[in-house]
């Protein structure tokens, strides 16, 4: 992400999953206008005149899932670089600047290569000094963070971006009279971005990784979980990249990635707020029309093979225990994905949810419980999981037993009509509540247009949910909640070095064994 906010990995991934947006039929139908430019760029326009503001959400259908080994973190670093300006924004003299930038690129690439291949230390030091000199040479041309400044002085709020496994998204809210400003800037960012100040930004990504993962026990746990559950498919890899990848991301490759994927026909943009459709269509055509469409590469072809047996990992951190269990599941539009939306709500939504009731209220073995669906991404087969905050390391086994028992219940007992009704009500109300903000609407509309191919997925979601039979929940539970399909990740507190000798004997007995089969 470009700026704030700081959130826990769990919350961050929850947003990356996409809100489980269910709906009441007909809520949005007829109000959203789809306008597709000749070059394929798709705009979703929703007039909403509650306040004189606009919410913009632009999604590029490319994420870390489109990377390959060695360039992990490219999509995310590219997202950062898209804030550094264009030929006309962020620079005092592009023609002069680009000469220096080309030199910086060569020096940077060479320096990376030398460091990677264990080159001569003196040579490396020299190159580092050269690079620094060149960066100083480039500085006078730069108008610092000009796009941020322009948006800020024009009343923009929430100017930011996110990258996840499936998508790269750019968002902002502006007062309603700044539509053309947005068009001017965003079309320029698509056509002529300049990846200036690359090497210092790469350092920033390292800090971001440290903040979100390396210095964050929960972030680390989830990263390890997904790397274990997914072996072949790119969902194995963290969006931010492994540290050794980030350190060596090549600017050339980042630029190439942009050229390949940031095509207008690969973009969905939702705009919600106080505007007049004919007026804005003219602006969109004028500014975004000239961007040439491109052929897009094939999507990733590796398919995660079926898991052959339970996977269990221990993650030791200077932190109290956490328990995490996940199962592979199909992605939308497979009907099973809808069923998992139901299971997700049933198990963890609220204090009357099944896991909270059992583990927190009745058995008192967990301080908190939660479930998640569509982790770490939505576009491809993904995972459904549950987690518990055990009331001490000695409750980990009990948490596992109870969670798995609740999953087993879904195989053997039909969900009663009353409980199912509660789930439907929850999903529908959630959708309703999401309608009261321009930026929230823009976020949801663009999300489902991008991953499901049609924003109407929202409108139809609750209709489909209502048709789900209790038997289908049973079938899905039987099919997917098996030990073979299961990955468990347990966070344990690292023993302090002084205590190591006395606890080694105890280690084998304290390590949680296999759970219910």
């Amino acid at each position, binding site marked *: 992400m470009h700026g704030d906010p700081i959130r826990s990995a769990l919350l961050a991934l929850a947003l990356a999953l996409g809100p489980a947006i269910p709906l009441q039929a007909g809520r949005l139908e007829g109000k959203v206008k789809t306008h597709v430019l000749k070059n394929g760029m798709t705009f979703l326009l929703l007039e909403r005149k509650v306040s004189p503001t606009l919410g913009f959400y632009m999604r590029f259908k490319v994420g870390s899932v489109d990377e390959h080994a060695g360039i992990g973190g490219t999509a995310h670093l590219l997202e950062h670089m898209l804030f550094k300006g264009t030929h006309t924004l962020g620079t005092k003299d592009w023609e002069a600047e680009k000469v220096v930038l080309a030199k910086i690129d060569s020096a940077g690439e060479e320096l990376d290569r030398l460091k990677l291949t264990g080159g001569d230390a003196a040579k490396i030091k020299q190159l580092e000094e050269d690079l620094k000199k060149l960066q100083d040479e480039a500085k006078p041309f730069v108008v610092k963070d000009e796009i941020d400044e322009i948006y800020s002085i*024009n009343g923009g709020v929430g*100017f930011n971006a996110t990258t996840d496994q499936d998508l790269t998204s750019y968002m902002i809210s502006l007062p309603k*009279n700044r539509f053309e400003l947005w068009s001017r800037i965003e079309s320029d960012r698509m056509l002529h971005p300049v990846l200036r100040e690359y090497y210092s930004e790469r350092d920033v990504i390292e800090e971001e990784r440290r903040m979100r993962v390396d210095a964050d026990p929960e972030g680390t746990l989830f990263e390890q979980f997904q790397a274990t559950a997914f072996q072949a498919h790119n969902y194995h890899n963290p969006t931010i990249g492994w540290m050794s990848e980030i350190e060596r991301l090549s600017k050339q490759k980042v630029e190439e990635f942009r050229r390949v994927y940031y095509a207008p026909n690969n973009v969905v943009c939702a705009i919600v707020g106080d505007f007049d459709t004919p*007026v804005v269509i*003219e602006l969109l055509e004028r500014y975004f029309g000239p961007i040439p469409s491109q052929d897009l590469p094939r999507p990733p072809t590796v398919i995660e093979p079926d898991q052959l047996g339970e996977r269990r990992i221990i993650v030791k951190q200077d932190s109290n225990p956490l328990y995490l269990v996940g199962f592979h599941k199909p992605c939308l539009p497979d009907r099973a994905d809808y069923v998992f939306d139901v299971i997700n709500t049933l198990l963890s939504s609220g204090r*009357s949810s099944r896991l909270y009731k059992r583990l927190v209220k009745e058995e*008192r073995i967990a301080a908190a419980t939660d479930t998640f669906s569509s982790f770490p991404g939505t576009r491809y087969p993904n995972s459904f999981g549950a987690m518990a905050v055990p009331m001490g390391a000695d409750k980990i086994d009990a948490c596992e037993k109870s969670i798995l028992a609740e999953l087993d219940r879904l195989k053997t007992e039909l969900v009663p009509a009353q409980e199912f009704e*509660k789930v439907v009500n929850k999903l529908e109300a959630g959708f309703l509540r999401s309608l009261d903000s321009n930026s929230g609407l823009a976020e949801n509309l663009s999300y489902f247009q991008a991953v499901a191919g049609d924003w109407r997925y929202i409108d139809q979601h609750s209709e489909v949910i209502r048709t789900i039979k209790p038997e289908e929940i049973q079938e899905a539970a039987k099919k997917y909640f098996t030990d073979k399909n299961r990955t468990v990740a347990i966070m344990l507190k690292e023993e302090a070095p002084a205590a190591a000798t006395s606890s080694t004997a105890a280690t084998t007995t304290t390590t949680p064994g296999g759970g219910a089969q």
Partner: protein
Amino acid sequence: MRKITEFALLAVLAAGGVQAQAPEANLVHPSKMVFEPLDFDLPEPERHELPNGLVIYIMEDRELPLISISASIRTGAYLEPEGKEGLAELTGAVMRTGGTEALSGDEIDEKLEFVAASAETAIGISEGSASMSVLEKDFETGFTIFADVLRRPRFDPRQIELRRNQMLEAIKRRNDQPGDIVSREYRRITYKGHPYARISTATSVKSLTRDDMVKFHKDNFHPNNMVLAVSGDFDRKEMLARLEKGLGDWEKTATPNADPAEVPLTYDPTVYLIQKEIPQTNVRMGHLGVAKGHPDYFALQVLDNIMGSNGFISRLMREVRSNRGLAYSVGSSIQGGRVRGTVMAYTQTKVESTHETIRLMKEVMEGLEKNPPSEKELQVAKDSILNSFVFQFTSVEQVVSQKANLEFQHLPPDWLEKYRDGIAATKVEDVLRVAREHLHPEKMTVVVVGNPAKFDKELKELGLPVVERPLETFD
């Protein structure tokens, strides 16, 4: 309704002369673009005060079939007797989970969650809150429970134990996340001696009794001790009648709560080091500042905007992150409430650049005086605040709760307009004056959570006394 004219940069939009596709040479720079002025009406909620002192701000919103109520309650951990730290939190939580005279906690959970409604209560350090959110059709169900939770909580012993255990578990986990450590310790040190510095321990939490909670509720929850904000899909008159029916016979207290005591202005120019083996150091530095009602507050917001609260526009972000890549997260925050807030800056940086980054941040903060804001910097900060003013009013719920909050904080009802005018009137010399008076980088407390074995330089090189602060376990 009052009209607000935006402080627009420029004048009128040229009539839409259709341009052919704009080749780059014809691209207008955004600074040269002109926009229509933005006129918008500032929506005004109504204020009602019931005979028992309950203050209600209310406004209809017919867009969606939803109704929300939120309450700010004049209570908090600051009112806990010594030795009973955690009482406010526990009471606030169990008011909701422990059931009411009419229904058990589980029954409330089922009833509300079946219709996807919520009613929540919580008490923090400086204030308490209660809220409910329902579909319009379920208002009766939700409000009956909400009123009961506020007035007639059951404090079921089993629910008390459940929550107590959750709190004890949370106390165990207090040192898991470096961010939690640094913010907590910064608060405890900066507000030392004041109730805002207090913190619960396993001992204090274990000592809490049901009687304590019943008393805390009885002493703190009264109609003339709170302000309500009500918005949604209803008819105003009908809603007021309903609220009166449900809360009008609630007895007022002869002794409504006092606000937290003001904090004496003291400084503690010390580096506090808390050791934790992490690859990234977490830093929070600062000192006490002013309350929100202070006449210098507006100029301080402008100062903060320039210094570090406006992301990439601000000097801290520019120098630490954008220019040097030393951090992903860096910035400042000058806040105030009913009592003094703090002037604070924060960052996270890899272990090996800990000293460098702290030193740089201090230089940037000292630079506000030594290298004063230019007219341009000032204008950028002011325009940013003023032109985004419209975003204070994007939903009816936001507008109503804002107004309610102003009253709760004893700020005048037109405070937002005063804020806008105060920002607009700020000059460079005002920013300098408030910096001289309220910003003292050399007197900052610096709280560092990290692994000193890997620091680039020893912290004592910062020129302040260094105190090692142990990672407490809050037994």
